[in-house]
């Protein structure tokens, strides 16, 4: 088998059809003016011209998932006795995320350190992550607000992906990164890609040069942000316009915080895990009713700090922001995290 592959554009639907027989395939499609990852079905037209509004994070880390079902059972012989039955579902289907962007795929690497590479791996995340193959489309143009090259990434970065694809004039060049990626290349329809490798590399370099550079380096930034922790004046100024909604967090491919809720009706119920956002006041609301982050500047400070200071401090300098630009692009009031970081560097 060739090391790389090439697929003429007209053969893409057939590839997805074939993959759909073995995997549940999620791919970006257009709904109105919004690009969303949806379950692929034959005949569905893909939208590969720009990153999805919502990254594919929910396919591995769902917006809301049932951790287990609860069933309280009364003993018919002695009604005072109740037993509890718990049922969890850890059976996940083989999945492909097709057409993720490099920033989206790297988001999962941010999650991996938290959910997998620890003493106790999260079984739900682990189950889905292991069963998922990520096929990533390199970017051929920057999107409004994106800045991946400034956070140590790039429009063709392969970390977190299983198979990389690059759009060329007549088709897609495929380069496997992992064994899972190589499996996909065994499907029919691929030609030998070696003749296209150079062309793809040139395309990658061209786009890299076009990406916005809000700051030259992040060296010393984690420490600088920590030193600004108690500078309320700085944070109040930077966050005055923030409306403290969760758009930035929920659209972020690297935000992984969650909430746990027990939903019960009668004798049955479920424990739910759902996305949570440090932009919300109740995120840190304690049972005593004390809230250590009562003000919005404390909350946005946490979002910036977590990505550019606390996470890199904990995980060998890795910045927990892939520069996808969604939080900037879709912010109701155009809060720009890269600008806040640049201001912090100069403060």
């Amino acid at each position: 088998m060739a090391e790389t592959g090439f697929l003429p554009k007209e053969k893409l639907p057939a590839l997805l059809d074939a993959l759909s027989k073995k995997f549940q395939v999620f791919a970006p499609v257009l709904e109105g003016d919004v690009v969303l990852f949806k379950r692929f079905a034959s005949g569905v037209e893909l939208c590969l011209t720009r990153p999805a509004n919502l990254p594919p994070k929910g396919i591995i880390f769902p917006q809301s998932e049932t951790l287990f079902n609860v069933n309280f059972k009364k003993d018919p012989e002695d009604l005072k006795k109740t037993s509890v039955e718990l049922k969890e579902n850890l059976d996940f289907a083989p999945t492909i995320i097709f057409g993720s962007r490099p920033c989206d795929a790297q988001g999962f690497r941010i999650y991996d350190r938290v959910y997998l590479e620890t003493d106790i791996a999260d079984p739900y995340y682990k189950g889905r992550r292991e069963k998922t193959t990520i096929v990533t489309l390199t970017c051929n143009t920057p999107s409004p607000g994106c800045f991946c090259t400034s956070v140590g990434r790039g429009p063709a970065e392969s970390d977190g992906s299983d198979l990389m694809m690059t759009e060329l004039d007549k088709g897609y060049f495929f380069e496997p990164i992992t064994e899972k990626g190589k499996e996909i290349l065994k499907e029919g329809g691929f030609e030998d890609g070696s003749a296209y490798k150079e062309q793809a590399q040139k395309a990658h370099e061209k786009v890299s040069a076009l990406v916005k550079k809000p700051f030259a380096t992040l060296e010393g930034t984690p420490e600088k942000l920590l030193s600004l922790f108690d500078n309320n004046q700085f944070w109040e100024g930077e966050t005055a316009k923030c409306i403290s909604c969760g758009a930035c967090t929920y659209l972020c491919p690297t935000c992984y915080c969650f909430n746990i809720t027990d939903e019960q009706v009668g004798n049955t119920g479920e424990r739910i895990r759902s996305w949570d956002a440090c932009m919300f006041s109740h995120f840190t609301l304690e049972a005593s009713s004390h809230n250590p982050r009562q003000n919005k500047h404390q909350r946005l400070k946490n979002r910036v700090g977590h990505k550019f200071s606390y996470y890199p401090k904990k995980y060998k300098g890795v910045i927990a922001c892939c520069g996808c630009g969604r939080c900037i692009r879709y912010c109701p009031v155009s809060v720009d995290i890269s600008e806040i970081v640049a201001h912090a560097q100069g403060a």
Partner: protein
Amino acid sequence: MTVEKLKEAVRKILPEVDVVIGYRQGFDPLHATPFFMTKPEQVDQLIWNPLCVQNLCSYLPFLKGKVGVIVKGCDSRAIVQYMQEKLIARENVKVIGVPCLRVISVKKVMAAINQQSVQEVTFEGENILVKTPEGQKTIPLADVAPRKCATCQLATPLQYDLLAGDAIQSNRPQDTFEETKEFEKLPLKERRAYWEKEFDRCIRCYACRNVCPMCICQDKCIAESRDPHWTSQRANVTEKSMFHMIHGLHLAGRCISCEECERVCPMDIPVAKIKKKISMDLKELFNYEAGMNPDDTPPLYTFKIEEATIKEHEL
């Protein structure tokens, strides 16, 4: 009105207040961003053009001290509504009114330019000129204005302490709720299917709620309270619809039709349609429009034995 006149107004107000809220250029040439000015030298960065879309009044109920704010006609209804509901002390707010005939919808511009990165934006007459890697495109402002501008009645704000520029009149037709009426003619099943498809995209980020000038509960919103537990954390369309219905109904007689909720939705859900339907009903039932007169009482804040415009069943 020129931006110089506006800067002059801000410089005049700034010494009397703690902060003046205006606009400056955002992350790209197509985005303006709210700008909190506390020092005179910051005023140089102030901008004024049809990109200045955000309703800056939304910040007022949460700010202490004296605040200056730049207010368009449509936004000024928020000031009036706040006065009715005693949510601001009017004497602590210095309103810098700006005459405005039209803003733009960034989403509509982005759709018109194929969602490309924007390199340059200029305004010429009634057109917006947008430069992208694909080239320059000239778009008539009227084609990319938000829905609300088509029926604008308030080219000059209802409330202001200082008007930057001359008062102007809008000659646009009044809103007759045609779109809402047409939608209502559809069978219930179709309307339901429409909303289920739209709400399915909701990620419950609450941008629509937090940007809303009249959503003043925010941190105490019943959409998130655990006790009582009105809505669950399940991500299904029932829960999502429930939240949007709560949002809409809590705005009955209070929604000032700024359509900020719809502008900010990252999933492009036409949530202002719900509020529009409620505003239409309020107009029909109580002949009432929110945020027009500071002395009014919102109809759902009061009780009359006989409502002039509601025909009761014969008893």
